[in-house]
């Protein structure tokens, strides 16, 4: 049924949209001006002339104390973190959920609730012991050390568990009669059926990994492991003497840092919705 357009509703929606978009536009527009302009005139809502120079510099300029960490490098590191987190968490939590739902073993429920309660503990609570373990294992300054300790995901396990429980038992029984063992059932039936779930969790976990700040800060001292989040922070830290911080570069980095998560959401959202409308159990 067509609804009559109500001007007031639209007004509220437009204000809401503007409210959310304005900071992003402002960051982008400001990033195209020089740092001095920003420092003297404040933030901009109009495009400037320095866009190419600033973005080029941000991506290729060798910065940091050692002078060999570029924007590209940071972008890559963040990408590795985001993808590693998302993929690793999905694989791990799917397997955990599979074990919890489909195998009868002692204390399964207890185990599940133990995993579930870790949801209540934020990363910061266990950051020191985690650091110590990684340090003992000699995994500081490595991608393994950055990614692996945070892979166990109660959220993912919980979601997959609920999803697996919603799959009718007959599916398992039919597969058993069809001669599919536990491994085949997982790969041939469960994984394809979980595509929607996987897309949803991928979005959440990629952004979670992408936005990590504290953990990489602790785990890595080598500048070649810098992520974008740390890069932005370090640009704004240079208040030495009368030097003006490179606001434009910080804005440019922030804009760059936004693009991959947005892309992931857009791409996987489409898959996610497609999966939702297609699946018919």
């Amino acid at each position, binding site marked *: 049924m067509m609804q009559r357009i109500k001007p007031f509703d639209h007004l509220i929606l437009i204000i809401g949209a503007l409210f959310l978009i304005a900071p992003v536009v402002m960051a982008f527009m400001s990033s195209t001006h020089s740092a001095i302009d920003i420092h003297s005139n404040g933030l901009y809502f109009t495009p400037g002339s320095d866009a190419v120079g600033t973005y080029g510099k941000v991506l290729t300029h060798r910065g940091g104390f050692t002078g060999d960490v570029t924007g590209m490098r940071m972008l890559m590191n963040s990408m590795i973190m985001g993808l590693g987190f998302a993929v690793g968490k999905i694989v791990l939590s799917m397997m955990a959920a599979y074990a919890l739902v489909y195998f009868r073993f002692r204390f399964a429920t207890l185990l599940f609730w133990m995993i579930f309660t870790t949801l209540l503990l934020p990363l910061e609570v266990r950051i020191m012991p985690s650091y110590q373990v990684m340090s003992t294992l000699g995994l500081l300054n490595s991608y393994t050390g950055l990614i692996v300790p945070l892979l166990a995901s109660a959220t993912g396990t919980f979601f997959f568990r609920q999803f697996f429980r919603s799959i009718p038992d*007959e*599916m398992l029984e039919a*597969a*058993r*009669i069809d001669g*599919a063992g536990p491994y085949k059932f997982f790969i041939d*039936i469960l994984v394809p059926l979980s595509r929607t779930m996987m897309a949803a969790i991928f979005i959440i976990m990629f952004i979670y990994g992408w936005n990590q700040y504290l953990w990489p800060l602790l785990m890595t001292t080598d500048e070649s492991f810098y992520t974008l989040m740390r890069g932005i922070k370090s640009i704004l830290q240079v208040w030495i003497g009368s030097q003006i911080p490179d606001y434009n570069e910080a804005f440019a980095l922030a804009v760059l840092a936004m693009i991959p998560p947005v892309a992931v959401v857009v791409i996987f959202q489409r898959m996610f919705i497609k999966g939702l409308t297609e699946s*018919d*159990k």
Partner: protein
Amino acid sequence: MAHLSLRNVGKTYAGGNQPAVCGINIEIADGEFIVLVGPSGCGKSTLLRMVAGLETTTDGEIRIGERVVNTLDPAERDIAMVFQNYALYPHMTVRDNMAYGLKNRGASKATITERVNEASRMLELGPYLDRKPRALSGGQRQRVAMGRAIVRQPAAFLFDEPLSNLDAKLRVSMRMEIRKLQKRLGTTSLYVTHDQLEAMTLADRLVVLNQGKIEQIGAPLEIYRKPASTFVASFIGAPAMSLLDAFIENGAITLEGHVLAQIGNMAGPVTLGLRAEDLRIAKEGLPMMVEHVEELGAQRIVHGTIGAQTLAVIDTGEAAVQGAVRVAIDPDRLHLFDTTTGQRIESKRQTARELAL
């Protein structure tokens, strides 16, 4: 192709003190179509799932062919099963759904293609082979589920209420198709249903289950004509057989003070079973007060009371039926049951003359 035998089979769930199923003895000949029928909760599905290997068997022995399969995995039992909700793999095409079992068993590509094509021809699924199950109607999904069973060429088919999710009309046509297909393939089949009509029309032999025990095994007509207990009598046949409290004294059976027939059985109270189609509304007979009439088109079912007891009568007449009518009884078609055990008592009729009351 194989015969199937259940010997003293039973199951008690862990933690349960009463067996869900017990003392089941059925010998199923090669190619026979057996229907397990009973009300919900009678253990018929449990029994089927035990044969399939989806439930453990705690007592007795299940044989498929010459093999005792009690401890074998479902995949090793050489059976195929059709589920109530079809349990098709939603992400696979019809072709892949049918081929999956064969693929897992390492059948060659040529064999798989050949069998799938043959099954799809038999079930008229040819045009749908590359569709996903969600793009099919209920009846077509049901066929795919059948196809998945057929391609495997198993020793036995197991059906778990496969028609319950279909609408009434489709159910009738699928019922005939299943029967034809089974005849053609000659595969031993075990079929579970709660629908007595489905059971009657499909079965070579019926197994009526109640509370985990077999009430009666026999050909559909045999069970219909000679129900072994009040349970079977009221479960098989529609409308249900009317069961009335009657009395035998002085060599005659009396209902609410009316003598129905001369009978040689022991005197005492007895449960009298009367099928609606063995009764008719006539000029003479038992007086019945009509309560309501179910119009079915070809016939109507007249529900009424004799004394305080209810009775159903089938009437094919045109005239309106209401108030007090008289019901004639064929004394050869009386069913007698023990009042305490509910078991059938063979009536010892002395004379076969219709009684005028």
